[in-house]
């Protein structure tokens, strides 16, 4: 058993080299076209937060319309021009708002913002690599994402407005420019943006997978990786396999829109005019879309799961319960997520037998999700819980995942889905289980790794305020929506005024809107905290959370290559918290077992007979000594 532990003593030559390199960096190469994974992570994070704020403002706009469908707000006309004539958001622009809110949140915030930030930041730092496998491709990944964001937002500046067929852009609505204003140039921009987004996502994903597989430090075998890395790794695999299918679907849609093909179109009479399309099927698009679309929701939630697992373990001062089960359930979710997409299509006219099959696979995927939930609860049990803001957000993630996940059992059941499909019940379900849960996972990550990113600490009290307002706000917004759905209120309705049966929900709509505004304003506490802490926050120590993982062995000051001198070697799994017999309540991964004889367990040497022998010798001498005493 090796007793050599590598510490932070840099080799002189290496230090010099790093220094030299530093001097050559210009502002552009350091902050803009950076190839350093830590900087790219920050770029992803800040772009993601910006997009999240924009998407949140869009949601407040359409919430105002839903709360006050009869009132006029001249300010809206001032701000939005012809999109809101006479102080009211137009019906078409309302749908644009819904569409772009969904698109930005799902793809730009919770895919790129979440995976992009934390995969870039954590993969090299937690597995012990100097950078990503391909830093240049990593940089390209960010810039494609940035371009995609710009193109997506630019659609607000075309005459007819942005895409408005819902974030799922089902043709023929999205394919026929005459079907609605948003299906004109706005839709074209949406499609262009999406193709660039997928390119970005693929370049990122390939990088993440190859880095995890090839660049782990000495001793870091797969079963010693933190759950964050497992989650980000599997997420990247999902993305690589699923996103190209979306591109295929999108390209065929571009053909239908611009080159007169009929992949998705058939038998169409629009406004009394027969269209020349024959032989296509709108259902084909839905298959292609949801073949990405369903893995996509796991692309969104799995990093949040990984982050929450890590944060909860650190702050409960307890190993994550059932580490292997957690990994296997992530793998199970990854595999199963490819064969459940049809549950979005139970009532689309898909063959009912297929619906039955998809129902079976869908409810199977609930099992690994349940296992994860129970394991999180068991992690908290008899812990010593420190309430950092990151911990609170991780807990919030678990709470939302339970609340939203359980309603998935209703929607995954084809028979129940008949009456719930496309109602507010669905809106409540996915906003809790993937919207709120994933955003809380992301915020947990931001609060937890802020010291790693910026070398500063965020203000805890503001974090508490931010958490409770957002957490309560999200429940107040989405909980009542379940009951609207159970009353058969469809989603994407511009106003509830036209149906007598829906008018009883108008007051609840007003309530939801004000809860949403409260939650949105709570984000000011976060943004303020985030920006002020970058410049004026308290300096962080190297390992502020007393965590075991490798990133906290790297110096606070960012250097190219992460560690001065040799990369530390890993000897143990990342969750040795509160191990009986250990001096501290945490043992970093870089501490060899030979230094912790008093806390070693037979279990630690399952695949290391020599080590086990040492341990037995140690315990027997200990016993002998006790006898002597």
């Amino acid at each position, binding site marked *: 058993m090796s007793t050599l532990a590598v510490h932070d003593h840099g080799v002189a030559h290496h230090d010099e080299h790093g220094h030299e390199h530093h001097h050559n960096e210009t502002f552009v190469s350091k902050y803009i076209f950076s190839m350093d994974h830590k900087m790219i992570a920050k770029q992803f994070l800040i772009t993601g937060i910006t997009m999240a704020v924009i998407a949140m403002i869009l949601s407040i706009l359409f919430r105002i319309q839903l709360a*006050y469908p009869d009132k006029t707000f001249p300010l809206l006309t001032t701000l939005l021009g012809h999109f809101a004539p006479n102080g009211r958001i137009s019906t078409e622009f309302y749908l644009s708002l819904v569409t772009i809110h969904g698109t930005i949140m799902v793809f730009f915030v919770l895919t790129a913002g979440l995976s992009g930030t934390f995969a870039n930041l954590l993969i090299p730092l937690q597995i012990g690599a100097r950078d990503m496998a391909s830093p240049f491709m990593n940089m390209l990944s960010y810039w494609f994402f940035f371009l995609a964001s710009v193109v997506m937002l630019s659609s607000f500046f075309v005459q007819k407005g942005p895409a408005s067929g819902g974030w799922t852009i089902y043709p023929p609505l999205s394919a026929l420019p005459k079907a609605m204003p948003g299906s004109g140039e706005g839709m074209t921009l949406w499609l262009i943006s999406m193709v660039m987004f997928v390119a970005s996502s693929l370049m990122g994903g390939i990088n993440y997978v190859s880095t995890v597989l090839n660049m782990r430090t000495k001793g870091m075998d797969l079963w010693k990786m933190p759950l964050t890395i497992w989650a980000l790794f599997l997420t990247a695999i999902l993305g690589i396999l699923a996103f190209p299918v979306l591109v295929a679907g999108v390209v065929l849609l571009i053909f239908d829109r611009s080159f007169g093909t009929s992949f998705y179109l058939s038998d169409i009479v629009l406004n009394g005019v027969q269209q020349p399309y024959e032989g296509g099927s709108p259902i084909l698009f839905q298959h292609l879309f949801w073949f990405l679309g369903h893995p996509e929701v796991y692309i969104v939630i799995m990093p949040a799961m990984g982050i929450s697992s890590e944060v909860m373990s650190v702050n409960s001062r307890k*190993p994550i319960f059932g580490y292997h089960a957690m990994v296997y359930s992530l793998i199970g979710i990854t595999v199963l997520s490819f064969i459940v997409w049809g549950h979005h299509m139970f009532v689309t006219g898909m063959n009912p037998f297929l619906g039955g099959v998809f129902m079976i696979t869908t*409810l199977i995927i609930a099992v690994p999700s349940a296992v994860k939930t129970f394991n999180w609860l068991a992690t908290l049990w008899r812990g010593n819980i420190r309430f950092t803001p990151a911990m609170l957000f991780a807990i919030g993630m678990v709470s939302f995942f339970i*609340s939203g996940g359980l309603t998935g059992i209703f929607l995954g059941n084809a028979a129940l889905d008949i009456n719930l499909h496309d109602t507010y019940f669905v809106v409540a379900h996915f906003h809790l289980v993937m919207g709120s849960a994933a955003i809380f996972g992301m915020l947990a990550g931001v609060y937890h790794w802020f010291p790693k990113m910026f070398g500063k600490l965020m203000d805890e009290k503001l974090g508490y305020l931010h958490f409770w307002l957002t957490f309560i706000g999200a429940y107040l917004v989405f909980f009542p929506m379940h009951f609207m759905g*159970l009353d058969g209120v469809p989603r994407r309705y511009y106003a509830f005024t036209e149906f007598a049966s829906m008018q009883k929900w108008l007051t609840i709509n007003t309530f939801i809107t004000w809860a949403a*505004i409260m939650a949105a304003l709570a984000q000011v506490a976060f943004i303020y905290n985030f920006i002020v802490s970058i410049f004026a926050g308290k300096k962080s120590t190297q390992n502020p959370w007393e965590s075991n993982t490798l990133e906290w062995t790297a110096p606070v000051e960012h250097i190219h290559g992460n560690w001065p001198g040799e990369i530390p070697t890993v000897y143990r799994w990342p969750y040795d918290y509160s191990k009986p017999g250990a001096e501290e309540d945490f043992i970093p991964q870089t501490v060899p077992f030979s230094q912790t004889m008093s806390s070693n367990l037979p279990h630690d040497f399952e695949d290391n007979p020599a080590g086990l022998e040492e341990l037995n010798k140690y315990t027997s001498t200990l016993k002998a000594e006790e006898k002597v005493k």
Partner: protein
Amino acid sequence: MLMGTNLVNAQTPAAGTTEDAPQVDWTGVSYYVLLFLLICVGVAVVGKILKIYDLTLKIQGKKGLRWNNVMGFICLVFLLAGLYGAYWSFTVQGSMTLPEAASIHGVKIDEMFTVTTILTMIVFFLTQILLFGFLFKYRHSEKRRAHFLPHNNTIEKIWTIVPAIVLTILVVFGFFTWQSIMDNTDAKGEVAAINVDITGHQFAWELRYPGKDGKLGPKDFKLTTAANKLGVDFKKKSSFDDLSADTMYLPVNRAVRLNIQAQDVIHSVYMPHFRVQLNAVPGLPTFFKFTPTITTAQMRTRLDDPKFDYLVYCNKICGGGHYNMQKVVRVVTEAEYQTWLSHQKPYLTDGLRKELHFAAAEPQQTVSQNRLALNN
């Protein structure tokens, strides 16, 4: 923190009054901005007070504010308030949901819904109570160390297998219910279902009933004209006696098969009271068979609402008018249905007759329906 919440919520009633004014309402906006800034100042002041309090405690040699205890306590408060809130929501808002199913299969769906709700709600309350209970109970203490428990195979097996069994039951239950609901063929010996043709376009539904022969004539979108809105093919005899209708009348306790189609974009026939929903897809006819069991008149008395009507909603985003694409459905007795049916006008109007007569000279191609093999 709580003060901030109250302030924001307190605006709710005020909001209506200030924004009611028709003139440009800049004062209203600045009022809210100022109010928000005021809240921010309030939060900052409270923050400073807490900090000072914390510092004085530390100066006195005490430990300072123990935030772990504060948060643990708030978690407990949240749990209790949340439980009450969930209970309130279930009773008050839960009673605002749809009335009992007005169709045979709808009752089966509702039964399954009840079973699923009971099972999931047990898990919901149990897990949330454990989650926030643990947070309170195991909040940080200097004196204690966490219990080192990396895994326990027995309990992990239990909570893998139990959900698997419960879900299997739900799946089997659901699978057969789903198959029986989606079976739109008439069983042997069963009275044939009434075929009703419902076609969606931006932004309305068109209805067509079969005539005496009980058969609907075939359609072809290429035959669509201003007079022949649905493109009915009059080369077939069965087309001639078809009827067009404004309201969907259905006889109670008789099976109906909706032939669902769309002309321009995807729509969705959604009749929540009957637990019926199926998309209307251009180029892909879909079918939903169901049996209404409660007449409109009966439902009106049950709900104590004389204006109640069953409705078809559009439930797939279809454009600007999506939110108001409704069709009234009346479930009536068999006798009332027959009377109503006898008053309906034929689809083949005089205008259409004229048009067809002129068109008869041109050779007309019949194009077979383009259905994708994989879908139907």
